[in-house]
């Protein structure tokens, strides 16, 4: 029963938790790299060193007068053990404690080799094939250090490659993360709770009071929300595709603000085909309504205009509101517009916001991809 229990314990201790679990991911990766290296043809010096060291140790034991069977039992595992310890120490430096572990190991093996050589010289029982043992041991040790050199060269290269790959992946992930975040922010900015609840407040009242304005407002709101969620997930949109979204927004604000606002749109067909990062037009229109119309005591007109010609194309959103206040600062919306223009077009796009007489004019200009060559 005791034997059975100890066997069970042994089995449990073996299966409970593989030892690699205690290792850091880095060390585990090192072990995996060692195995891969040993199994590839790059690992031949290590295998050869193992065979030579086993051979030499067995031979040495026989030379010392051991019978063949114990000599084989003691000598054969020596090579694989040394190779295993040695290669592990390269790949998983932390497994072997101590600061100068590699020197220690080196000296240990070199010392063993010298002692064996000295033993041969003095015992004088060397006969037959056993005279080759000492050079074989030395050759095995040389092979080990040679394979260590090979390994380090390969390891450094692959580590470099891995670092590059990792950096590239991280950069790509960070960029994707930023883009997603920008999109979410955009979506949030576009559908501000304040806008939504204020619109619902009007809607609620008109539903309660049976006002005919309720139905068209609800339709505009639905179309706006649908359009916003759809468009904001694209990488770019044609101006003509985003224009309806801006118009739904204007229709909602028109319903809410009544006579305080009027709007006009004038977009040429050529300009309508042009691509923009999504939400850009809407941001400009929202700015015009928020800072132009809603901040004004008087009626304000909002105008969206876009035109294209040989020297590029231009989008303008203007309002006849109070204009830029002295000491105004660029808000989040406009900063976002700039960032996305830069990201999308690089130096080809520019964006400006200035006082118009009266009101404010936001202007986005996109220059063509290739510089315009003047006709000969």
């Amino acid at each position, binding site marked *: 029963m005791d034997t059975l229990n100890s066997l069970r314990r042994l089995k449990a201790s073996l299966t409970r938790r593989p030892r690699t679990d205690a290792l850091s991911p880095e060390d585990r990766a090192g072990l995996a790299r060692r195995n891969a290296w040993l199994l590839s043809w790059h690992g031949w010096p290590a295998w050869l060193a193992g065979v030579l060291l086993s051979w030499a140790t067995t031979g040495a034991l026989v030379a010392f007068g051991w019978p063949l069977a114990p000599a084989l039992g003691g000598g054969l595992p020596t090579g694989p053990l040394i190779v295993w310890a040695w290669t592990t120490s390269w790949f998983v430096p932390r497994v072997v404690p101590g600061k100068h572990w590699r020197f220690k190991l080196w000296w240990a093996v070199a010392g063993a080799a010298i002692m064996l050589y000295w033993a041969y010289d003095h015992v004088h029982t060397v006969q037959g094939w056993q005279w080759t043992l000492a050079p074989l041991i030395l050759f095995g040790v040389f092979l080990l250090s040679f394979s260590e050199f090979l390994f380090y060269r390969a390891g450094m290269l692959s580590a470099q490659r891995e670092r590059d790959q990792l950096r590239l992946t991280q950069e790509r992930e960070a960029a994707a993360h930023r883009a997603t975040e920008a999109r979410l922010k955009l979506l949030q900015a576009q559908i501000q*709770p304040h806008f939504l609840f204020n619109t619902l407040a009007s809607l609620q009242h008109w539903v309660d009071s049976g006002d005919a304005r309720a139905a068209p407002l609800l339709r505009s709101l639905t179309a706006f929300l649908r359009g916003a969620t759809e468009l904001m997930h694209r990488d770019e949109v044609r101006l003509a595709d985003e224009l309806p979204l801006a118009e739904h927004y204007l229709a909602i604000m028109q319903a809410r603000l009544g006579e305080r606002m009027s709007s006009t749109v004038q977009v040429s067909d050529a300009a309508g085909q042009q691509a923009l990062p999504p939400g850009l037009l809407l941001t400009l229109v929202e700015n015009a309504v928020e800072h132009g119309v*809603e901040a004004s005591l008087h009626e304000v007109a909002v105008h969206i205009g876009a035109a294209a010609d040989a020297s590029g194309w231009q989008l303008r959103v203007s309002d006849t509101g109070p204009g830029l206040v002295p000491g105004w600062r660029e808000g989040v919306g406009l900063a976002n517009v700039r960032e996305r223009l830069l990201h999308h077009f690089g130096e080809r796009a520019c964006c400006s916001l200035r006082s118009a007489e009266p009101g404010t004019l936001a202007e986005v200009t996109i220059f063509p991809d290739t510089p315009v060559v003047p006709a000969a």
Partner: protein
Amino acid sequence: LILDVKMPACAYSALVADDEEAPRAALVAALRQAWPELRIVAQAANGVDAWDAWLEHQPDLCFLDIRMPGLTGIDVARRIAGRTPVVFVTAYGDHALAAFDAGAVDYVLKPVDPLRLGQALARVRQRLASPAATPTGLQAMLEQLAGQLRPVPALDVIQAAVGKEVRLIRVADVVYFEADARYTRVVYTADGDDGEALIRTPLKELLAQLDERAFWQVHRSVIVSHLHIAAAVRVDEGLMHLTLRGRDDKLPVSRQFQGLFKGL
């Protein structure tokens, strides 16, 4: 008059301000439902009208939207300075909400929920019953919030048509502004010469663009440059007027503004 007779003597009066028509009407309807005795004496569509209406009607209670053109609801409340309980009406997502929660300010969210409105009204009724209970720190909080909202365009030059010419009057030269029917009379002194002009901008709109520290509103229809005030003279219990430096003009100070001249 007949209506007034029907009203109970203790009926409170209220001002409702919202720059959007539907939410304003919705609030008025909800108030009529929740508090039938409350008289809504004025409905304002922007901040300057709200302040003007407060001066004109002296309501017992105000419902102010926060984002309004001219003066924001915060600005109006700051001017009211705790003399009348204020309930802010705003939509979810307003930056001021956090401050309101911290300062125990009464507010209702749009769209108005009758239950929540009822709770806010119950608190206001308590406050009306014991007028001294203005939340402490309210004014400081409003000052801070007002600073965070958009900066008001500071007017520096006024254009006034006088006969065939358009005169440019530096605001710094103005002695006082006085409301005159639909116009505003600008009395100024430039290079030793006194002048007068009529401009079309109503006084209540003008006041939102003037630096409050330099131009004091002393009456619903008078804003005066404080540098030109010589003395505040109390005539009787309710009446006070201002004399100006080197001028014969006398300007009235209405009861709401007499606190400006405490004579420390």
